[in-house]
């Protein structure tokens, strides 16, 4: 991988500037809310891509970390009445703890074990939230979280700043020696092992980083919605994130983040379709799998950057 070039940097600045200024120009609370959700999904998609896109170990239960982060924020707010700012670091810690529990037994194995175990763990967590409703609030979830920042516009800027930081950190890691090792693991795990690379350690560490950002995004989402509920753990959340990554272009970090923003905006526009929305999503995924296996946004940007150079 090459270093981040000037043209990539310029593109990133333009996109961030447009994202930051749009709500000021249009001045609508509705739009600010939609953009906040866009930015949170972008954090989730970028964090999924860092682990699964680079190492090729597909994570079908990213919602486990998202839900863990969100519920941590929920419990802190409703049970311990803690300062809402504590929920961000707490969510990161809990999400990383979950990643250790699932990752440790499964990531040292080859084959589909990790994918299956993540899917199983997130589905079972959702069930447990419903079963232990005395503690988790059951179907309704937990209510009464306090917003981190009162003004929606300022909160949006805060989330956007977190997103920019997340993408910057993940891209820097992906472009480092470290990211190269992760890609090598995707290419041929046995050879890496033979070359003396501690494959399990690198996979585990990348999962922990991925979980940390997903949990952070989960807490941000909880403090935006001011409530948490079991569907946060659902497979639908995981698959939505994966579709966003696929649209963006797997393995490029910035592509999935942009894919998440575009698809979330598209979803808002499709709101009129109601129940058919998820169908449209699923069909999009099938079409992309068949016709654009490299995704849409990252290849387009690469071609555009080539032209501009």
């Amino acid at each position, binding site marked *: 991988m090459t270093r981040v070039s000037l043209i990539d940097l310029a593109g990133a600045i333009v996109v961030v500037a447009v994202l930051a200024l749009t709500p000021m120009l249009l001045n609508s609370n509705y739009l600010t809310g939609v953009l906040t959700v866009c930015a949170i999904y972008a954090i989730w998609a970028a964090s999924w891509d860092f682990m699964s896109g680079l190492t090729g170990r597909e994570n079908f239960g990213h919602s486990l970390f998202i839900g863990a982060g969100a519920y941590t924020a929920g419990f802190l707010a409703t049970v311990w009445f803690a300062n809402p700012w504590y929920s961000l670091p707490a969510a990161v810690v809990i999400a990383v703890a979950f990643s250790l529990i699932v990752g440790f037994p499964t990531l040292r194995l080859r084959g589909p074990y990790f994918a299956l175990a993540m899917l199983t763990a997130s589905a079972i967590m959702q069930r447990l939230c419903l079963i232990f409703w005395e503690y988790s609030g059951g179907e309704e979830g937990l209510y009464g979280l306090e917003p981190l920042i009162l003004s929606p516009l300022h909160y949006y800027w805060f989330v956007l700043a977190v997103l920019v930081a997340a993408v910057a950190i993940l891209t820097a890691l992906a472009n480092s020696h470290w990211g190269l090792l992760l890609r090598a693991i995707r290419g041929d795990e046995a050879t890496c092992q033979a070359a003396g690379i501690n494959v399990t350690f690198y996979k585990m560490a990348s999962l922990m980083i991925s979980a940390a950002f997903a949990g952070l995004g989960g807490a941000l989402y909880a403090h935006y919605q001011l409530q948490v509920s079991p569907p946060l753990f659902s497979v639908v959340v995981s698959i939505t994130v994966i579709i966003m990554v696929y649209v963006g272009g797997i393995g490029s970090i910035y592509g999935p983040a942009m894919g998440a923003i575009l698809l979330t905006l598209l979803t808002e526009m499709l709101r009129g379709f109601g129940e058919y929305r998820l169908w449209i999503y*699923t069909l999009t995924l099938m079409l992309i799998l068949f016709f654009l296996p490299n995704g849409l946004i990252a290849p387009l940007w690469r071609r555009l950057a080539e032209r501009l150079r």
Partner: protein
Amino acid sequence: MLQILIYGAVSSAIYAMLAVGFTLIFGVARILNLAHGAFYALGAYSAYVFTGLLHFPLFIAAPLAVLLVAGFGVLMERFLVRPLRYSQLAVLMITLSVSLAVEQGLFITFGSEYRNVPSFVADKISIGGVDIGGQRLLALFAGVLVLSCLWLFIQRTRLGAAILAVSQDPEAAQYMGIPTNRIFSIVMAISAGTAALAGVLVSPFLTVQPGMGLLPMVKAFAIVIVGGLGSIPGSILAALLLGYSETIVAYLISSSWTELVSLVAVVTTLMIKPSGLLGRRAAF
């Protein structure tokens, strides 16, 4: 005590039917089919449509439902999975999207409310002082029958030998003149059919709603991992193990804790013996 014995056997039979289909298509075609739960849900909904709405008798409705779902599975394998077989991730993605599409389709057509399927066998049968619904006994017997037939089919027939050959080495089998692609279709039909049959059999005593396939599929994963990916006897053994431990946990502690059993089983297996109880290949 007897109650645990019988109820455990019933849930084991249902789990075994799901897990054997799942492990078969993985073992033979290396397809990790995340749409397996969707087949189960489709089976249950077909039972609802055929017996609840159209009032067909069971002996017509059940085979019809199984054939329908098996056909759906074959079409899915042929047109959606086969072109993407070059990548394991793409196969996972496409089967997962099929399962979501089916769930959403059921939601749009039937709504999210629970559907009741009229019972096939109304009588209760008393065994040693324990009343067991005829439904559950039917599920148990049908499950045992189907699995034994499947076992005989694979071990004793020419087609079964071809399936075994493909599962051991698809390329060598192809060179010997076995049409591998046709074998994949046949195995997919068997796998989807058994899942659908499990769905039909449980429909009268479990809730029929669009999301019903996910949890049994998760259980099937757990069983398959515990038993060893690709091993049929392993799946049956693990299904018995999981079915009984869930029933025992439900009796001794509370039914809320049953969901944890499969999770604990998976984690312990992967830590201690990742290849599963009877898995031939090590997972490493």
